[in-house]
């Protein structure tokens, strides 16, 4: 057993436990600052992993694999957690008790994601998926005094547990026929089950569980409610970390465990991708709650990334990785701004009385009015983020979509359904421009904004916002380096 391979996981878990211990001794007033300690720890882990990358190989009897894809996603998840932790420090005032536990839970969820990126066996897939999901049940309902948060937690719990049930039953069927839980060993025998309905049904059930994680149609119903009700940092981590974990597992299952069967499933993936894109974008149009709107938009983005997977080519997979990188800086930048801009509104914390049922009226789009006068940096970041999400050059979102569409069109001569898929995706982009620009209009051109008091931002938040802006511009203008990273990462997967 080579423990050196697991250096990221060990150090993140140790950091989380240290945080919980420090929570016991620190005075109440300085607990909030523990978030900065966690960020510092993660930065050290990230840099150490870059300077001295762990060797490639497998351990735990082939369950755990360290390869280019795993390393790419480990760095991705740690970067996401750093930005989310910085956001949570700003959010600390809205969490009544246990802010240090909130930080620690983010780290435990992160460790689940790190394990997920290395899963090479259905047992590790299941355990890491559950480590993420169960932690997110708590993170979602962390504001126990807010009814919306509790309700989001319960909804996530029921639908999450349901998808777990499907996944486990699917694994049981796949195991029963394939006689192994290991992806590598399964790949050797999967070819002979190409037309075995029980095996295919089992695999479909496993994909149901992963579809729930990435919020793809028809398992997306939880997303808008949970995105709206959860505390903003949790929503941000859910949108980036949890979704990316679903995608890395989807890549592993489809292209490592059952590559022969995946080739036959392009039509299914095309249909799911097209419906997901249309559903997310169309439902986002009438939304007035910002977080709910971003929830629907995240469904649409899952659809774009599924488009890359449905292309079933190395180009499509690396485009997904590139898109996720752009999505990370874009979405986390947007959520950081929303988290700060909304909490500076008066009466942010309602007690959920029966009269208004705990609805956060102040999360309405109109509460962004006049943001450009209140804080130019916040307004600039969210504008760039929305423009990038809409896919307008020269930002990261444009190039990501371009690569995805290109990968799908490369497959189109063989199967004409890809033409339709790309046409639907472009229609989705056009629809999305409408509602993203509705948000931008609310920021710059709303009539008589109620509150023009300037918003103070702390230095760590400014750094994090600048990092997001630089990331969006860099990925959009000079993509070569990251395209190469993404191509290297998936090299081993397809060989």
């Amino acid at each position, binding site marked *: 057993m080579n423990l050196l391979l697991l250096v990221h996981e060990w150090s993140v878990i140790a950091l989380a436990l240290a945080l919980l211990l420090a929570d016991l001794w620190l005075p109440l007033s300085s607990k909030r600052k523990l978030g900065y300690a966690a960020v510092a720890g993660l930065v050290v882990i990230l840099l150490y992993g870059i300077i001295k990358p762990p060797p490639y190989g497998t351990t735990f009897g082939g369950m755990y694999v360290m390869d280019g894809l795993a390393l790419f996603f480990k760095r991705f998840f740690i970067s996401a957690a750093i930005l989310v932790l910085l956001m949570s420090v700003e959010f600390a005032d809205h969490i009544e008790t246990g802010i240090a536990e909130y930080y620690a839970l983010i780290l435990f969820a992160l460790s689940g994601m790190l394990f997920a990126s290395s899963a090479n066996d*259905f*047992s590790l897939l*299941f*355990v890491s998926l*559950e480590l993420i999901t*169960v932690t997110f*049940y*708590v993170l979602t*309902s962390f504001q*126990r*005094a807010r*009814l*919306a948060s*509790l*309700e*989001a*937690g*319960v*909804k996530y*719990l*029921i639908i999450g*547990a*349901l998808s*777990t*049930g*499907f996944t*486990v*039953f699917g*694994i*049981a*069927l796949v*195991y*029963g026929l394939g*006689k*192994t*839980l290991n992806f590598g060993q399964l790949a050797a025998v999967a070819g002979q089950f190409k037309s075995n309905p029980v095996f295919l049904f089992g695999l479909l059930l496993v994909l149901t569980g992963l579809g729930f994680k990435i919020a793809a149609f028809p398992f997306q119903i939880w997303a*808008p*409610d949970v995105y*709206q*009700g959860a505390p903003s940092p949790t929503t941000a981590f859910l949108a980036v970390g949890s979704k990316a974990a679903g995608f890395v597992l989807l890549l592993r299952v489809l292209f490592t465990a059952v590559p022969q069967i995946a080739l036959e499933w392009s039509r299914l993936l095309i249909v799911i991708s097209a419906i997901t894109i249309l559903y997310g974008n169309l439902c986002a149009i*009438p*939304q007035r709650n910002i977080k*709910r709107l971003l929830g629907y938009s995240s469904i649409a983005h899952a659809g774009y990334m599924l488009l890359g997977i449905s292309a079933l080519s190395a180009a499509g997979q690396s485009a997904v990785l590139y898109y996720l990188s752009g999505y990370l800086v874009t979405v986390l930048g947007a959520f950081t701004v929303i988290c700060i801009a909304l909490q500076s509104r008066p009466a942010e914390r309602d007690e*959920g009385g029966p009269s208004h*049922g*705990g*609805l956060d009226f102040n999360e309405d789009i109109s509460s962004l009015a006049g943001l450009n006068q209140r804080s130019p940096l916040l307004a600039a970041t969210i504008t760039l983020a929305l423009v990038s999400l809409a896919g307008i050059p020269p930002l990261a979102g444009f190039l990501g979509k371009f690569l995805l569409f290109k990968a799908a069109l490369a497959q189109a001569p063989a199967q004409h359904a890809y033409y339709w898929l790309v046409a639907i995706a472009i229609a989705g982009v056009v629809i999305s421009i409408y509602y993203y620009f509705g948000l931008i209009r609310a920021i710059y051109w709303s009539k008589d904004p109620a509150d023009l008091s300037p918003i103070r931002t702390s230095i760590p938040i400014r750094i994090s916002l600048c990092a997001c802006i630089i990331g969006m511009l860099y990925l959009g203008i000079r993509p070569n380096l990251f395209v190469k990273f993404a191509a290297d990462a998936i090299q081993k997967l397809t060989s």
Partner: protein
Amino acid sequence: MTIGLNHYLVVSIMLFCVGLFGVIVRRNLLVIYMGLELMLNAANLALVAFSRFNDNLDGQVFVFFIITVAAAEVAVGLALIVALYRKRQTVHAEDLTTLRL
């Protein structure tokens, strides 16, 4: 008559369907939760049966993981339902109407 793999699988599928039916039809969160547990146990039964008849222990080890994770999930889930009850005085799914368009 000897009991074979198929018998176990039929029971397992029946358990799974009963659980799923409970989740879809019942409105009480606690009963829904029981249905969810039933679905997990149906999968456990299938895994153990496959493991026994395939002469491969992986499935039985995996069942231990599922039981452990299910216990953790129940702990969190029940805590959440209790917290909701304290706030809202209800455990019925149709009363969860705060979050909607």
